[in-house]
């Protein structure tokens, strides 16, 4: 605010926000930071820098593990060169699916560090390596605290890659130094993404979730699932002769 301007002594917050010279947090000056396209137009529009920030820590809160690849695969394919590191993944990445998706398996390295005492040094050392293009890390069984995340953030800020750490949904309620935090959850229509913290953005309302639609081949076709009616899990309205192979679908 300019000093000396004729401002009344008692101003409401609403009045202040009408002024042009009030810092609002949502400043585009941060847009110069390097980012990578998320591959999802609506998500790019919601992110302050227009993409996943590089050299920063992205915290994804989600129930169990679901939707990681759908969320980050376009960005991982866009990052080249550089290794894609999976730190403490919840299961083995399936080579067939990754080859189908176009991931170069020679760039994908799996690092297993189940204990927190091993996870933190592994994350920080890998993040500081310039050859690390992206790192997706899953919180070990022992929860990460603010200090642990701070160490990860500092290491990420020294690198230039994409760094994401996946934590349970309950971690949303905990304090975290990560500049970008989001909630990811599968819904019937696809993957719901809620950006509940972005550094430099002051939200006045509850953020609305974005829906990233399910990939087309995953969507059930009418009558396809029931098969001969004997298959468990098939709905009663889906009985019929099926056995359509996914390969035969357009």
């Amino acid at each position, binding site marked *: 605010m300019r000093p000396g301007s004729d401002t009344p002594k008692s101003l409401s917050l609403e009045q202040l926000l009408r002024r042009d010279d009030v810092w609002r947090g949502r400043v585009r000056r941060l847009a110069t930071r390097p980012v990578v396209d998320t591959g999802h137009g609506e998500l790019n529009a919601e992110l302050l820098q227009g993409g996943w920030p590089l050299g920063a820590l992205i915290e994804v809160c989600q*129930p*169990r*593990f*679901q*939707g*990681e*690849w*759908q969320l980050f695969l376009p960005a991982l394919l866009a990052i080249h060169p550089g*290794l894609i590191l999976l730190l403490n*993944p*919840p*299961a*083995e*990445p*399936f*080579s*067939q*699916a*990754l*080859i*189908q*998706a176009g991931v*170069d*398996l*020679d760039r*994908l*390295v*799996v*690092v*297993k*560090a189940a204990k927190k005492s*091993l996870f933190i*040094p*592994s994350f920080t*050392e*890998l993040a500081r*390596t*310039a*050859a690390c293009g992206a790192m997706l890390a899953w919180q070990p069984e022992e929860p990460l605290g603010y200090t642990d995340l701070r160490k990860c953030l500092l290491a990420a800020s020294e690198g230039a890659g994409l760094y994401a750490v996946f934590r349970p949904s309950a971690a949303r309620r905990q304090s975290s130094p990560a500049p970008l935090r989001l909630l990811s959850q*599968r*819904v*019937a229509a696809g993957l719901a993404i809620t950006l509940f913290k972005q550094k430099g953005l002051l939200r006045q309302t509850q953020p609305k979730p974005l829906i990233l639609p399910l990939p087309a*081949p*995953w*969507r*059930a*076709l009418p009558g*396809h*699932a*029931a*098969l001969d009616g004997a*298959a*468990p*899990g*098939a*709905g009663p309205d889906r009985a019929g002769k099926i*056995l359509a*192979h*996914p*390969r035969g679908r357009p």
Partner: protein
Amino acid sequence: MNGPRNRLWLALRIRDLPLSALEAAASGDEPLAVAENRTLVYSNRAAEAAGITRGMDTATAQLLGGCRILPRDRHREQQALEALRDQLYRFSPHIDIHHSRATAQSGLRLELSSCLRLFSGLQPLWQAVMAELAGRGHDTRWGLAHTPMGAWLLSFARHGISGDETPGCFIERLNRLPVQVLQDHPQAVAALLDMGFATLGDIARQIQSSALASFRKRLGGEFAAFIADLYDIDRDFAQGSLFTRPLATHVPEEIFHERVEFEHPASLVAHLQPAIETLLQRLADFLRTRQLACQRIRWQLADIHRRRETIEVRSDLPQHDWRLLYDLSIITFDNRPIPFEVDSLALDCIDPQPRRAASQRLDFAGEGKGGGDQRELPATLAKLKARLGEGAVHKVGYRDSLVPELSQAIVGLGERCLQQLPDAHRHSLRPAWLFSRPIAIAQRGQHLYWHGHLTLAVGPERLVGHWWEDPLARDYYLAQRSDNAVLWVYRDLRSGEWYVHGIFG
């Protein structure tokens, strides 16, 4: 430079090598023989006293005297000769191993002319060599000549060594040898005998009268070349002495083994660190001066009670610098308690290998940070491996198999991944996460449950085959769980059981 006329070769033929290489335990009077292809190639004195001789077939030898017959082991003979070569390396750097092609006769040939002054003449040098051999208990015959092959052949004759031999003297001794001594050329020997040649001197006289070309024409180029080498006859050059054949120099295998003794017993890794650093720096000097690199080192901790602990440290890439090996060693030491108070620390380098030349970026603009950091990755991954375990850092690849879990390959960091999918897998629905072991799904009535109710959405894709090992018959489906998670499930057509095999991430 010494010309070929001044060279002096000492051949040492180890007569009992076929037996001594086997290190067979036997009393002195037990008849022993070594056989190859059912023919004896060596018999000891006790066997010879029983009438068992070389060239005899094994059945006859056993009938004659209950002789114990051992199979010949050429590999161990070579190892024994290499060990002997390293032992005699202190007398001459020019030392080679010679094997007879036709008989089980092997030995060493040393070029001595360049070492005579060091050992004060030929006589003292020869005595020192023989004393060295006597310590190993070998039955050795020697020969001295101006050519290596001449010395070898003269080992079949018995001549003393006076120290004032000349090439003319050697040629005269060679001339007296019968042509049968050329055992490695049986066809040539037979032809020479047919032509009336009885001694090598007959051959020498024939060469003087009608040159070497006549032998080349009648007995082949190889035999002519052999005779030329034997007598040191210049074949191809008008002034052959100008073109001296260089002598091969033996380079014995060098090992790195260094030890540090502590004044006070060390019980903490911190106490060991200075010694670890010192030993690794010495190793780096050793590797640098020999243009070597190593991937594995071995630490040996010992105390005054003769307790020993061996710790091996391994790097994915060959190292010639000490820093990464130091970091890896410290991590390894930190991960395991020191079992006793350490009084000495030794370092061995395992399997050193030639250092590969690596190209480096020219950095005129001073932008070296990027290149340097790229080189950090192998070091970082090596440290992680040391900390997390060998199998904790890996890549995944495809392996050609119909069975999904078998098609998943764990690939080392230095290996290339197979990334070519067959058509059967290229267009099929595959989840990003795979469970290496399928997890059973609870079935209640017509409903499936795994952390929630499952609804089949897409499928099935039938995989049938692998009949030669564990027959496979599965129908795979994409299923949606009540919390909207997308799973890859299958029904085992043989048992009717349902399993979840992956998750669509």
